[in-house]
């Protein structure tokens, strides 16, 4: 847990530097780290590699433009960047242009990625990620799937219920339980 905080605190500091001094070098670091992850996130919603790339770049440019509104005591950098990427996805979906193609069942692919990833990342990142990995792995598979479908497939409760052929009530109770457990693991109360 200590590691988690120190790693994300690091990005909080970087983003604060960007906010205060329009520090371009720091932005380049942030871009290098977050853009490829935001792109993966957006690839869940669009089958087009080019569109995901373009939106990821736009997300990071918004981070730069809006940086003055960032306050490290209110949100972690990763939270803030997640919100920007998510809003971009929502806007895109709403405007209907480019019609983001919803991908259906990429969960198993994701699970595989969770397993493989540990080898390819640097030590600090791995340490922060493993805690949440661990928490997700300890969830019953159905709950992990519900969380995944909510965050990375953009599906509503009814849509998930249809996909998995389970009652909506089960989708909601499963998400509720998963949220409770993951909250405890990620130590969100501390930020």
């Amino acid at each position, binding site marked *: 847990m200590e590691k988690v905080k120190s790693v994300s605190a690091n990005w909080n500091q970087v983003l604060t530097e960007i906010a205060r001094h329009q520090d*371009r070098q720091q*932005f*380049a670091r942030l*871009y290098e780290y977050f*853009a*490829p*992850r*935001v*792109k*993966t*996130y957006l*690839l869940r919603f669009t089958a087009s590699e080019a569109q995901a*790339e373009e939106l990821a770049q736009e997300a990071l*440019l918004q981070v730069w*433009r809006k940086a003055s*509104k960032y306050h490290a005591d209110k*949100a972690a*950098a*990763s*939270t*803030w*960047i*997640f*919100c*920007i*990427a*998510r*809003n971009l996805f*929502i*806007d895109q979906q*709403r405007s209907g242009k480019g019609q983001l193609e919803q991908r259906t069942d990429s969960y198993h692919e994701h699970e595989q*990625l969770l397993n*493989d*990833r540990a080898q390819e990342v640097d030590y600090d990142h791995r340490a922060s*990620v493993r805690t*949440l*990995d661990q928490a*997700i792995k300890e969830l019953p598979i159905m709950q992990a799937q519900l969380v995944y*479908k*909510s*965050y*990375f*497939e*953009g599906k*509503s*409760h*009814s*849509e998930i219920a249809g996909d998995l052929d389970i009652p*909506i*009530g089960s*989708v*909601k*109770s499963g*998400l*509720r339980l998963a*949220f*409770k457990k993951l*909250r405890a693991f*990620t130590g*969100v109360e501390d930020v």
Partner: protein
Amino acid sequence: MPKHHPDEATLLSYAAGSLTSGARLLMECHLARCEHCQARVREAEQLGGQLLETLQISPMAAMSEQALFALLDEPENQPEQSDVKNRPVSASDGRSYDVSDKQEQKPDWLPEWANALLPWVNKDTSWQRVAPGISQIRLQDDSFSRDKAVRLLRIAPGTCMPGHGHSGSELTLILQGSYSDETGRFCEGDVADLDPDIKHQPIADRDQDCICLIVTDAPLRFDGWVPRLMQPFFGL
């Protein structure tokens, strides 16, 4: 401060960006006056941020530092903002929508905290009668394609709604007045987030009209043949 809150699963889906547009709109109104739910949404957004960090990387096209810095100098290319209505308001990134010009057209029954509805209603918006004591305004928007119905319901004091269950989700937000049903008494700002297996028969309390925003994503199922005849009138 509201007493009845959305299900935590609904708050999580809001933060994840996966609610339908109608449901998101309803949540934005509730969040505008509910610190309890704002805090929960922040937690779910934080979870989103951490999940983002667990993602494997998809390499971006190679770009020199100079090229990147050049992008930073470019003026923001404003996407044609045909309409800025219904912009998501996030607890963490402080986005907001501009409704100042609509303020004077505000209907008197619409509370300040529900200004997100202003793009759809004004002083002159007329209520369509659907049954004795019940009238509605249907909110239309291209983005509501994933919602079954997004509408405002105005229920005269003491009116008893037909008992009904749901085959999908139903979110109800009280904008004015109050109603009571099997699950409790719902007042201004409260949200009823019912599971499909719950049947309920709301009765508007006696003091004033009860006005609520209702978002459904599957048809309501009314009991008995008379209410079923009413179904087409509700337009569900």
